[in-house]
């Protein structure tokens, strides 16, 4: 999913809106459909269950609220970091850094900034200009040249649709649109154009959700087909499965996982078709004190990553 950048669509909305009937149906009122979730959060349930942020080493996060709206955060991360290497061996280099962050959260405006000791700055802005229009900006600055990037998003939320336009550095443009077709089903599409790499792409997505399950599917012309299914077995347990297929590079990955949300803890486990199993446990030791354990075992590459951490506040 990382490769998909939401693009923009000029032409798709006209087609999709025709499917929303104007005639009044006794069971479903097609004039009052709920607003769909944002396009980038299409796979939200599956991502939350199947892709927890596993890490290796120690992680310590401390968030202190100075005000009702303003808070500071301090973070220490120590552990081996993987360097992408061409050979089959994974190269890990131990790194340690401290990250300082400030958050300002208002109903209309949200500002988040993080700065790390290795010189990286991360900033996010989200501003609700009106009830329906939202502007988001995201910037990552680094010391290395040509590695910094930024992106602006303009979101418009209609009664039963959402549309978004994106502009990023390196002449990256994208737009996406998602429309509720029935109270449970929504369809969307996206288009993007990356000027620097002279690439463009188009993708379609569909999402069907009920109280008990969510099924999503996404196809893009970059060759990715992604399907996911999440079943909420009870209010504490949900099971998720995910299937990703790249028809250009013939790469297939399937994964199955569970997500247990108990009162004192949250436990997520997943097993993959690449021979990789991960598990992520967040346990509430005390009010505001969370203990995190993360484990990832890759049997094929014989790569074992274990991490522990503490989150305060």
């Amino acid at each position, binding site marked *: 999913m990382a490769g998909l950048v939401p693009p923009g669509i000029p032409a798709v909305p006209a087609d999709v809106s025709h499917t929303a009937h104007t005639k009044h149906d006794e069971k479903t009122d097609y004039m009052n459909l709920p607003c769909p979730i944002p396009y980038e959060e299409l796979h939200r349930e599956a991502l939350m269950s199947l892709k927890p942020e596993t890490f290796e080493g120690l992680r310590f996060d401390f968030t202190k609220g100075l005000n009702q709206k303003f808070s500071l955060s301090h973070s220490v991360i120590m552990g081996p970091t993987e360097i992408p290497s061409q050979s089959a061996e994974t190269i890990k280099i131990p790194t340690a850094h401290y990250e300082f962050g400030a958050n300002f959260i208002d109903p209309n405006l949200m500002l988040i900034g993080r700065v790390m000791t290795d010189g990286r700055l991360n900033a996010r802005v989200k501003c609700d200009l009106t009830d329906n229009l939202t502007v988001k900006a995201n910037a990552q600055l680094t010391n290395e040249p040509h590695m910094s990037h930024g992106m602006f998003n303009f979101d418009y939320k209609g009664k039963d649709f959402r549309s978004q336009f994106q502009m990023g550095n390196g002449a990256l443009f994208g737009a996406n649109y998602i429309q509720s077709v029935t109270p449970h089903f929504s369809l969307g599409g996206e288009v993007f154009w990356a000027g620097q790499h002279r690439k463009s792409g188009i993708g379609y997505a569909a999402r069907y959700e009920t109280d008990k399950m969510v099924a999503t599917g996404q196809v893009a012309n970059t060759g990715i087909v992604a399907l996911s299914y999440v079943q909420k077995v009870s209010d504490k347990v949900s099971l998720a499965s995910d299937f990703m297929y790249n028809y250009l590079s013939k790469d297939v990955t399937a994964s199955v996982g569970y997500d247990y949300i*108990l009162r004192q803890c949250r*436990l997520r486990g997943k097993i993959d078709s690449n021979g990789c199993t991960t598990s992520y446990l967040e346990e509430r030791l005390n009010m505001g004190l969370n203990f995190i354990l993360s484990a990832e075992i890759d049997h094929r590459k014989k790569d074992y990553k274990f991490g522990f951490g503490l989150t305060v506040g």
Partner: protein
Amino acid sequence: MAAQPKRGGVSLPERGSASKPESSILARITSSPIVSRGKQAASDAAFVSKKLIHSTGKAAWIAGTTFLILVVPLIIEMDREQQFNELELQQASLLGAPPTAPAVALLVESI
């Protein structure tokens, strides 16, 4: 058991030709075809069982570590949740039955 093209990853080792029979009775017995067949079968069986043990061991290791990572925390947490529920039930009944709903909610909040 002559030299065959290898089909899979594992095949039985090559065999040399049978040794020449000697004159004494014991030597003739030990180099008779039945005994040599038996020896070949025994070494084949040893080879195959060694491979089987190795792959069973590998499978057991993978299954064991995967079970440890996926299932053991789940069992521990579910057990804790059950204990917590029992404690709550005990506390609720200790305070006199039946406690009113808001009181129970307050009790739950305070734990």
